[in-house]
Structures are given as C-alpha cells and as structure tokens.
C-alpha cells in the first residue's frame, strides 16, 4: 500500500480471525489490530483527526503550543503529529505510568508535566485545565470532550470493521475517553443497529480512585450511554491473564488494556455459545505490549503481575 506521508497511513488496520480462541465455527472472534498504526496505538486516529480539525477551524496556527492531559498513548500520537506539523507539545501525565511511555514522548519531542499518582487521569485533567488558564494562548485539544476524537472512529474504525466483516454481531472496545466507542457506536446505530456495542473499562487499584470527594468524579463530555449496550469493569488479574492467552494462543503481543477487552469479548462469546446464537465478535487491540514490558505484566505468576500493577495506570 502506498501513502504520500506517514499521517496518511493512519487507520486501515487489519482485522484478523482468532482460530484458537474462538469457541466454535459459529461463534467467532476477530481482532482489529490498532497496534499497526504509526506510533503503535489506536490513538493515532483520534490525535491526527483532532489536530487536523483544529488546523481547519483555525484554532491551531503555526508555532502554537499544544497541551493535553494523557496517560500516554494520546500524548505519544499527538507528539508525533505535532512534530510533523511543527507544533510544540506539552503533556500532563500521571506519575504512575510506565517509563516507556515517557521515553516515547521524549523521543517525539514532547515535554512532560507530572500530575500526582493519586487520582490518576482525573488529576491530569485537573492540572491541565489549570495550566490552560495560565496559558490562554496554548491549545488544549482535550480528548475527553473533542467531537473529532469520536469522529475518527465514526468515519474510520467503525466502517472498516463493517466493510471487512459484514456479518459482525458485536463490537467490543475499551472505555477511557469513550471516543472509540462513541464513534463506533454511533456508526453502527445508523449503519447496522442490531450490532451490540460492548465496553470494557479497566479497574485500577484504590490509589487511582482516591478522590477527596465525590464531586471530583469525572465522566467524559463525549460519553453518551445510549450508544453502548453493556459495560464491564475488568481488573488487572483478568486483563493480564487474557493478554497472555492472546499471545500464547494466537501469537498477538498486545498491551494490557487489550486483555481487559478480550476478557469482555470472551464473556460475550460464552453467552452466545450458551444461547446457541451465531456471532461474529470484533474487538479492538488498542496497542502492542512493548510499552508495558517494564511493568512486569508478561513475566512470572499472575499473582506477581497483579501485585506489580497495583497502583499503576496500566491501561
């Protein structure tokens, strides 16, 4: 395939069958390999779309500084696009994120401002909003509320899945900013409304939920619960177990959040088998495992891996 630039090559990822993990010939699992995007994650779609839309509507002008709260992947994608388009990139990132993410951000030229581990991404959002007030000339693309985030999946990820797998019955993806599922969900509600949209969200250790009061809770502005049909919370033990299974059975080396998504996809597959209901279940592989090697998720026993992930933002 020929593209005129790296940015033009974002998306168009393979959808591969999982012959070993699929429970039967009638209930099949399919993995959408988003790790095959330029910086290795699904966030290249949202980041490039948000940035290009901001250029189009005039919010971003040459020499601008972009600011974004991110636990990693969005920042890495934005840093890559910002570098190519000539912007300075500043990320606000919780300090309990893996070292590889920091190395990659630095490699693409982003500056990192740490936010406290307690409170996770909530804190990163709060800190970033404060910095944005101090620097009114900086542009915060704000992935949690930017419609271009969901639009990238409404125009890209959703239609790609349907084109490759017209018999699709379920789509399972991760819930963070909610952009992926809002875009995919809205697309299928219009194009093939009987497709069930299933969300898997990571359940972290207690540190991450350590809000001072409940009013500090956060629901992304993009989130519209009518666009999904079920939502599952998946802890690190199940996520790591499934990440390892995916590698062991199908040879796919994915990040830990993908394990959480696969866990929800396999639960759905089991329900379909029980109900004797044929199903083609597509799920998103958000990124590869490379950025999480230092977390220890891929070595030792599950108990050890679970312990090492305690308090970390692993998704």
């Amino acid at each position, binding site marked *: 395939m020929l593209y005129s630039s790296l940015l033009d090559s974002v998306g168009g990822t393979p959808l591969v069958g999982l012959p070993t993990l699929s429970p039967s010939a009638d209930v099949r699992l399919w993995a959408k390999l988003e790790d095959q995007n330029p910086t290795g994650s699904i966030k290249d779609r949202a980041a490039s779309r948000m940035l290009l839309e901001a250029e189009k509507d005039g919010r971003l002008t040459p020499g601008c500084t972009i600011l974004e709260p991110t636990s990693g992947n969005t920042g890495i994608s934005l840093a890559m696009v910002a570098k190519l388009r000539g912007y300075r990139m500043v990320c606000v990132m919780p300090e309990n994120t893996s070292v590889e993410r920091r190395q990659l951000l630095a490699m693409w030229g982003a500056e990192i401002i740490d936010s406290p581990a307690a409170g996770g*991404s909530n804190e990163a959002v709060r800190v970033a909003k404060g910095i944005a007030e101090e620097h009114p000339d900086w542009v915060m693309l704000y992935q949690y509320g930017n419609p271009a985030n969901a639009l990238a999946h409404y125009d890209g990820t959703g239609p790609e899945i349907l084109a490759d797998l017209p018999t699709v019955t379920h789509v399972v993806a991760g819930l963070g900013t909610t952009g992926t599922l809002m875009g995919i969900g809205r697309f299928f509600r219009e194009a093939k409304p009987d497709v069930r949209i299933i969300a898997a969200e990571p359940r972290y250790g207690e540190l991450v*939920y350590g809000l001072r009061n*409940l009013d500090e809770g*956060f629901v992304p502005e993009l989130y519209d619960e009518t666009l999904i*049909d*079920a939502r599952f*919370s998946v802890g690190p033990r199940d996520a790591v177990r499934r990440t390892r299974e995916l590698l062991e059975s199908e040879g796919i080396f994915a990040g830990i959040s993908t394990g959480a998504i696969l866990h929800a996809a396999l639960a759905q597959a089991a329900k379909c088998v029980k109900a004797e209901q044929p199903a083609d279940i597509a799920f998103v592989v958000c990124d590869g495992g490379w950025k999480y090697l230092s977390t220890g998720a891929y070595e030792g026993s599950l108990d050890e891996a679970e312990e090492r992930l305690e308090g970390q933002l692993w998704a």
Partner: protein
Amino acid sequence: MAVEVRSPTILRNYTGGAKAVDGSGDTLAEVIDSVESDHPGIKDRLIEEGDLRRFINVYVNDEDVRFIGGLTAAVGDGDSVVILPAVAGG
C-alpha cells in the same frame, strides 16, 4: 440473598473503614437499603432523587448496573457488588 458490597476509599467513613460489607436483597435498591440500615448515611452518597449519582458507578459481577436495570438490577446469592467513583481514563 447475601452479597458482598465493596466500598471505595472515599465512602469508608460510613463503613467503619471496612473495604467490604455484607448486604442482602434481590435487587440493587434492596441491597443498598440493607447496607444503609447497618451503615447509616451511605445511601445518600450513592443515590440522588431516586437514581444513582452521576459520579457513582456500581457493578454487579463486574457489569455496570446502568445497563442491566439500574437500581432494579437483579442481585443473586453470592454476587459481588462493587461501588466506584467515576474517574477519567485515556
């Protein structure tokens, strides 16, 4: 029906510091009422105007109750109920 209800750190001032408390009932609403009778005050932190508060997520066996009937979600013997504040991902 006996169920385990796991409380987030921020609500443990109501549970005497306990991470998990026992509840009973056939629906989430009944379970919350049973927890309230042992730990007065907690219900008001979870429910507002007859519905779950916006920044509270409750899961029965890891499934978000908002998609399985909300406060009327069925709860069975041995199920796990997890309460978490809504936080940002991404």
